[in-house]
């Protein structure tokens, strides 16, 4: 499903990172491991179409992401890739359900109200649909951001350091949630982390 070939990126300051080739199949679950500052975020940004690499190509479903126009790249990302950030980053002026609907609207996909409610229920936050982000705890916010990443039935779910600020118990819960949600929604999963605790949950690793 995703094919990365002879990819490398040169930073503005002149530092160059070469990425090993990587082949991800449908519904694969991968761990992207590496110490801080070795280019994990850069690779994720490249995969999600936010950062144009200096060299090499990246094919998602046989589409070369960086041959698309800027507008089509944005649209492609919205429809096929769900991103979960280290911080939840919800829109604070909108309630939980509106935040989910926003994902559909921004990607230009029809709103599926029933499914959004079901997603929230599956993640154990069905009762928070009308609440505003200010009123939720960090854990709840993270669940909402997972739900938002899944709204458009993405083919690929990307999570960037989802466990870095959590204790052991919560970290295990989040990993469990991500793997089952990705499986249930038929999406491939990439978790970028330097957190050793995650390793025991996911078999395939890509090391930077």
């Amino acid at each position: 499903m995703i094919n990365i070939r002879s990819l490398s990126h040169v930073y503005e300051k002149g530092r160059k990172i070469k990425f090993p080739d990587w082949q991800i199949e449908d519904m694969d679950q991968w761990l992207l491991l590496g110490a801080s500052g070795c280019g994990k975020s850069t690779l994720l940004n490249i995969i999600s179409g936010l950062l144009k690499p200096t060299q090499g190509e990246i094919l998602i479903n046989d589409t070369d992401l960086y041959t698309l126009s800027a507008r089509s790249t944005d649209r492609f990302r919205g429809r096929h890739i769900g991103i979960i950030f280290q911080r939840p980053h919800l829109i604070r002026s909108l309630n939980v359900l509106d935040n989910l609907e926003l994902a559909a609207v921004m990607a230009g996909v029809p709103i599926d109200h029933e499914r959004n409610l079901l997603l929230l229920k599956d993640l154990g936050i069905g009762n928070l649909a009308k609440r505003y982000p200010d009123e939720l705890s960090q854990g709840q916010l993270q669940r909402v951001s997972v739900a938002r990443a899944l709204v458009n039935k993405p083919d690929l779910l990307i999570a960037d350091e989802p466990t870095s600020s959590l204790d052991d118990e919560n970290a295990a819960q989040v990993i469990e949630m991500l793997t089952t949600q990705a499986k249930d929604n038929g999406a491939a999963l990439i978790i970028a982390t330097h957190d050793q605790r995650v390793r025991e949950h996911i078999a395939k690793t890509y090391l930077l």
Partner: protein
Amino acid sequence: MNIFKISSKNLVRNKLTTILNIILVAFGVGILSILFLASNQIGNKLEKNAKDIDLVVGAKGSPLQLILSSIYQIDYPTGNIPAKDAYKLAHHPMVKRAVPLALGDNYNGYRIVGTDTSFSHLYGLSVLKGNFWQKDLEVTIGSTVASTSKLKIGDYFFGAHGLTGNGDIHKQHAYVVKGILKPEGNITDNLILTNIGSVYKMHEEKHKETHHAAAAEAKEINDKQITALLIQYKSPMSVILFPRMVNQSTNMQAASPAMESARLFSLIGIGIDTLQWFAVFIMAIAALSIFISLYNAMKERKYDLAIMRCLGASKSKLFFLVMFEGILVTLIGTCLGLLIGHAALEVIGVYQESSQAKLTGLTAVPQEIYLIWIGLFIGSLASLIPAMQIYKVDIAATLTKDR
């Protein structure tokens, strides 16, 4: 869920800033719309009332005062002119129509105008109920007079001396209402019309009391005085010759309504200009305030916008989102301002003393459309630079950084 909803939700979240910006815009637009409406209505009234009147002849004095008193019925007359001289002018070959006016009394602030049938021809008057006056002491009243003073046909009333106030009432003779005029939308709505003889009669009695001019009753009308003469020329050629002839060869003065109202308007114009600049200044502050609040908000909203980009929104979509917010604020402000302007003018009209130049907020002028456009323009101008930030935001860097 669309751009409109996202924008308005965000505006509601920042209530105080939004309200401040809306008020600023509304204030500026309100002042401008009051100015537009008022100057338009005053201009219209000046024009409508002076229609078909080429020249006014009256006693020497301020020409503006002569025009104001005899056409717009606002100021006091400059004095009287001998009826004999006036009639001589009235029969001059250059004159098509001459309307004599005898002013001096009022009823509840409505002027009683002594004139003849040429007055109703000049203004094209017709009666709604009853008839025109025929004999002395019979009057035909304007529609506004009828509706506010509750006078009906057959009612009697006493006139008071002077042009305002009820101080010195002529109790010797009562006027009788013979007819009510159709509403004309000009000065005649506020007048009580009668013949010149009635006005003389009122004042002869007065004179008798003070042991003055006892023989006045016996004299011909020609020996008496009138206040002014409204003149219509036969041909436009007379514009140059006739006034000069009056001013040089008689003891009266001729004043042209067109020239005097232009002069009056240029005097009012200074005040209007000042207010206009003041309003423009407020609008500029409004634009600046919208700009600053949007620009400041961008620091915080950078995350929101980066998220929306990640969710698949294109740069142009977000550009319009920010623009839309600014435009929405000014649009609401503009509409509110127009509402305020109209309401304020209506309130001013209600409290206005002079019934002759009442202002109303219930009409609109085409210039107000421009105000809406100006509002939209200011909104888009103020939000342009903040919206441009969209193109600069590095999504990847923004989202990996902590809030």
